[in-house]
């Protein structure tokens, strides 16, 4: 069970690189970042691993932990669990079979495309939806950043999230079963997920609704892209690569990770597909107020253009998205010509996979609660309102918090003191209660010793 006290995060900040520019402070959708001693730091209970800070960081100080690639060689049967969006990173003239061959050449003995499980995932959701009409609108469990967002910010909606394993987990179960059925022992199988984003890493390392993931390691998609491309360049144009059986995914499966990918095949009468975390939050606010009625299904994705716009996507989100559409159009044409998609392979153990697809209900982990004692919480709230009146309300961020309100909350919760507000300092100086030297000390404690330069020198 997930322990609220030890919440795994994939995103970390390298203090030696961080210059405290405060870009991340302003962009974080859950106001998880503060500046202290000239460096940014993350308040762990507020972070949902969406990766917005990583995207905007100007000095690449915000990084995403991944497993050592060398681990791949520790297993005789190393498996790459590959998201379809990986293939869309490459120019269209690089054939899928060539990419598969390169993956094998760099060390993966088996490659399973995660979206092969898309149809099973859809079926598991249909069955769950049929039995849980009272929980409408049902929210897809697909995007782990969204599941975490709901846990911390919309605890009233946790029961609406479908507690169903995502295609990644289903394909991992399938790969494992498939290999073990061939007589390969578990210890010689290493399952490696090639992740397009940080939230999926957190989801693997600290899954919501289950004890432990069966996945043995996670490799960031951009670093694998570099390795594969290097291999292909090394081998050159005339390299004769072994002809491998590549999975021919259905058009539905290929499109499933893009925006509308789930919605277009769901059975709901009324549904919405929303991408971009700000858009999602705006919608969830309305949903929570009961302002939107009659919605049966919601596909919510943290990234603009869904996984094509994921953190480790190496190319423009629209270019990647179009390559996925191009692949899907080809698949659709084959399907029209009566050719069966090869992802039907999983159908042989469909019932086993669906039977194992339900996880424990998602639990709230509200970050908003001021105090577990309600009278104390009320006192704090009163104080926050009073403090806000003293603050300039321009959200300048000089105090190291993203907004005046966040700062007031930090002060009341004992995380900082009012003297760190620049405007309050000036006021106190005018009353003779603080000296300019005092104010400078405060500024240095937030922004670092070196930030205030001696102009005379």
């Amino acid at each position, binding site marked *: 069970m997930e322990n609220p006290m030890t919440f795994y995060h994939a995103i970390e900040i390298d203090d030696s690189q961080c210059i405290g520019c405060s870009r991340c402070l302003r962009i974080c959708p859950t106001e998880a970042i503060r500046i202290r001693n000239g460096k940014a730091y993350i308040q762990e209970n507020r972070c949902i691993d969406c990766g917005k800070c990583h995207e905007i960081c100007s000095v690449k100080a915000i990084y995403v932990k991944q497993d050592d690639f060398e681990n791949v060689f520790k297993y005789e049967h190393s498996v790459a669990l590959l998201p379809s969006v990986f293939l869309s990173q490459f120019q269209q003239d690089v054939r899928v079979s060539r990419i598969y061959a390169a993956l094998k050449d760099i060390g993966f003995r088996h490659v399973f495309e995660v979206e092969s499980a898309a149809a099973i995932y859809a079926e598991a959701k249909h069955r769950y939806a049929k039995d849980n009409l009272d929980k409408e609108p049902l929210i897809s469990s697909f995007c782990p950043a969204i599941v975490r967002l709901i846990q911390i910010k919309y605890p*009233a*909606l946790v029961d609406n999230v479908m507690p169903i394993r995502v295609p990644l987990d289903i394909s991992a179960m399938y790969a494992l079963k498939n290999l073990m059925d061939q007589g390969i022992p578990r210890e010689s199988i290493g399952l490696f997920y090639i992740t397009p984003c940080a939230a999926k890493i957190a989801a693997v390392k600290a899954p919501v609704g289950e004890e432990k993931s069966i996945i043995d390691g996670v490799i960031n998609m951009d670093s694998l892209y570099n390795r594969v491309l290097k291999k292909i360049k090394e081998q050159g144009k005339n390299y004769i690569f072994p002809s491998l059986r590549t999975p021919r995914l259905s058009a539905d499966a290929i499109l499933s990770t893009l925006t509308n990918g789930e919605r277009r095949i769901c059975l709901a009468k009324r549904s919405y597909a929303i991408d971009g975390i700000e858009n999602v939050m705006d919608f969830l606010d309305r949903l929570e*107020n*009961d302002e939107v009625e009659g919605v049966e299904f919601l596909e919510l994705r943290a990234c603009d253009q869904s996984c094509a716009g994921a953190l480790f996507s190496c190319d423009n989100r629209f270019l990647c998205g179009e390559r996925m559409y191009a692949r899907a159009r080809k698949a659709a044409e084959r399907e029209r010509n009566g050719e069966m998609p090869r992802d039907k392979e999983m159908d042989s153990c469909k019932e086993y996979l669906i039977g194992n697809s339900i996880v424990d209900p998602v639990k709230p982990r509200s970050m*908003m*609660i001021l105090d577990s004692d309600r009278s104390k919480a*009320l006192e704090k709230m009163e104080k926050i309102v009073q403090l806000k009146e003293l603050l300039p309300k321009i959200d300048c961020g000089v105090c190291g918090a993203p907004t005046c309100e966040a700062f007031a909350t930090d002060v009341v919760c004992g995380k900082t003191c009012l003297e760190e507000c620049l405007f309050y300092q000036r006021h106190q100086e005018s009353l003779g209660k603080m000296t300019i030297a005092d104010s400078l000390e405060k500024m240095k404690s937030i922004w670092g010793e070196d930030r205030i330069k001696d102009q005379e020198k």
Partner: protein
Amino acid sequence: MHLEYTVVEGDFVNAGTASSSVKKALKQLNVSPQVVKRVVVALYEAEVNAIAHAYGGKVLVDIDSDKIKMVVADKGPGIPDIALAMQEGYSTARPEVRDMGFGAGMGLPNMQKNVDKLNVSSEVGVGTTVEMVVNFV
């Protein structure tokens, strides 16, 4: 904890300002999601009523550790027959208000359903005051 909001006649765009802000406060106070929902639905209905029927008004909210009291007081035409207004489906909303998806005659009944105490007082030609209390249990 006392909160105050102003409601402007005909400003449907900003309907829900008070209820959203109250929702945030209740979340910070660790009030159960089910109770928060009842409060938000009831207050939103009351806000919409003041916007649709009256010439604006005020929302006064008092929160203490075991309950929330909400008063929505408007200046407006008033309600001649409160018992009739409490019936589901009874509406005096103008057609243009109905066109916007409001005025289905469910406002007051919906408030009744969601709160622990409801008191409506009104004077024709002066205004209406809706008082609601929800206990946190």
